[in-house]
């Protein structure tokens, strides 16, 4: 490892590894740092992705996929189950393998990768981010860089150190617990979402099949409501009631920021990607694909900025503009939708489910769901049409 790179990426999740790969492909020297001892572990994620978005960033390999899914099942508070076929193939991934190989692809593109590298501060040069301080095993190191890319997940400390406002509000933080368990007997063709304002306020419970009776079962609730009962305790109740014979192979906990993208995700010599930038879909909390789409843009812009010798905030703002055009603007609309959906009472959710069940299956699309659910909120329909027109 050298002491000086064009670009240092902090965090080797899907966004970090993708940013590193595209930056290295542009010819920049890149160092990718991961605090954990092994890339891909632990997996704090339900692992669901859509094919179309992901294909724009990486060629999907069959051995990354645990289960193909063709749609979703929405489950209402009184347990009406509505199957909805998706217009694209969905996958439940094996992220242990996926993350590992994304980092490997970054290395193949020319990036240096270092695990057990705990970054605990930034170096500053002329008032701008100029590298990182880190602990690797028992040694303290300083690495200089023209651009630091923070892909450090929800903690988003790289951004904080640079003076960006990266804190997540309690209401926008979904606090989550998940198990990967066997003997979860569900239809492998659908990812299931359970909604109930009483049981899962400001969030939902999910069951994502992984094949052969294995599934990710988890739930998230808004931090606005987690004071009285933890997501882990809620999940335990659900498992005891529904799957008393489940064998739990992994338990993880964590948070998902479900807000629009942070106001500031670039600075002089600094960029944020993925959860560090709040780039997950604010309704679903899904952040693999959107984080990787952002990271591809960020890596390319960073590489070009290095080649031009201009890493100013103004130059790096190209990333912000391209991200907003790709996904960021849609997320602003999704955020309005989130507030609408999570304000529905259990009675209203049950009514919506019954309306959907009365529709022929081929007409049950997400767009039609929104149409029927939003009749009382015409201004939101206009926003949605604008976002997708």
């Amino acid at each position, binding site marked *: 490892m050298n002491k000086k790179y064009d670009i240092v990426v902090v965090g080797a999740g899907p966004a970090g590894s993708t940013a590193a790969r595209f930056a290295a492909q542009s010819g920049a020297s890149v160092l990718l740092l991961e*605090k*954990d001892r092994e890339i891909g572990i*632990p997996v*704090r994620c339900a692992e669901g992705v859509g094919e179309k978005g992901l294909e724009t960033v990486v060629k999907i390999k069959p051995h990354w996929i645990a289960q193909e899914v063709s749609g979703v099942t929405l489950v209402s508070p009184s347990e009406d189950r509505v199957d909805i076929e998706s217009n694209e193939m969905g996958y439940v991934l094996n992220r242990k393998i996926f993350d590992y190989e994304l980092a490997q692809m970054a290395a193949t593109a020319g990036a240096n990768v270092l695990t057990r590298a*705990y970054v605990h501060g930034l170096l500053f040069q002329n008032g701008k981010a100029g590298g990182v301080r880190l602990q690797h095993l028992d040694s303290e190191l300083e690495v200089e860089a023209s651009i630091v890319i923070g892909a450090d*997940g*929800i*903690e*988003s*400390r790289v951004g*904080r150190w640079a003076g960006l406002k990266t*804190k*997540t*509000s*309690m209401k926008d*933080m979904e*606090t*989550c*617990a998940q198990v990967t368990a066997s003997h979860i007997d569900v239809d492998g063709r659908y990812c299931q979402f359970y909604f109930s304002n009483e049981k899962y306020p400001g969030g939902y419970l999910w069951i994502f099949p992984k094949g052969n009776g294995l599934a990710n079962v988890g739930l998230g609730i808004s*931090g606005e409501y*987690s*004071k009285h009962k*933890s*997501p*882990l*305790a809620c999940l335990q109740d659900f498992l005891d009631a529904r799957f008393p014979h489940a064998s739990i192979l992994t338990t*993880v*906990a*964590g*948070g998902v*920021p479900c807000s629009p993208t942070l106001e500031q995700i670039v600075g002089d010599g600094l960029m944020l990607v993925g959860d560090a930038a709040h780039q997950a879909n604010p309704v679903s909390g899904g952040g693999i694909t959107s984080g990787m789409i952002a990271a591809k843009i960020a890596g390319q812009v960073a590489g070009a900025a290095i080649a031009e010798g201009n890493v100013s905030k103004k130059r790096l703002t190209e990333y912000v503009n391209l991200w907003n055009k790709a996904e960021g603007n849609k997320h602003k609309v999704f955020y309005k939708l989130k507030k609408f959906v999570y304000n529905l009472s259990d009675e209203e959710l049950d009514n919506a489910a019954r309306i959907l069940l009365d529709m022929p299956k081929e007409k049950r699309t997400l767009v039609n769901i929104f149409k029927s659910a939003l009749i009382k909120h015409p201004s939101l329909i206009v926003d949605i049409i604008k976002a997708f027109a």
Partner: protein
Amino acid sequence: METKSMQGISYRRDLCDFCGTCVAVCPHDAIELSENDLQITEKCTQCMNCVYICPVRALEGSDE
């Protein structure tokens, strides 16, 4: 059971998943989380965000 108390908040390392959700919602950047330990610094104002957000209840108000 391994408990340590800092700034009026008790921390159970045996329950902690090191997920960083507490760090993300701390308004004062008062929490230092490494791969195997957590420190709450004197910047803490006891707003209890970390206690309420913790998905596994590894943090608790000491006086509760």
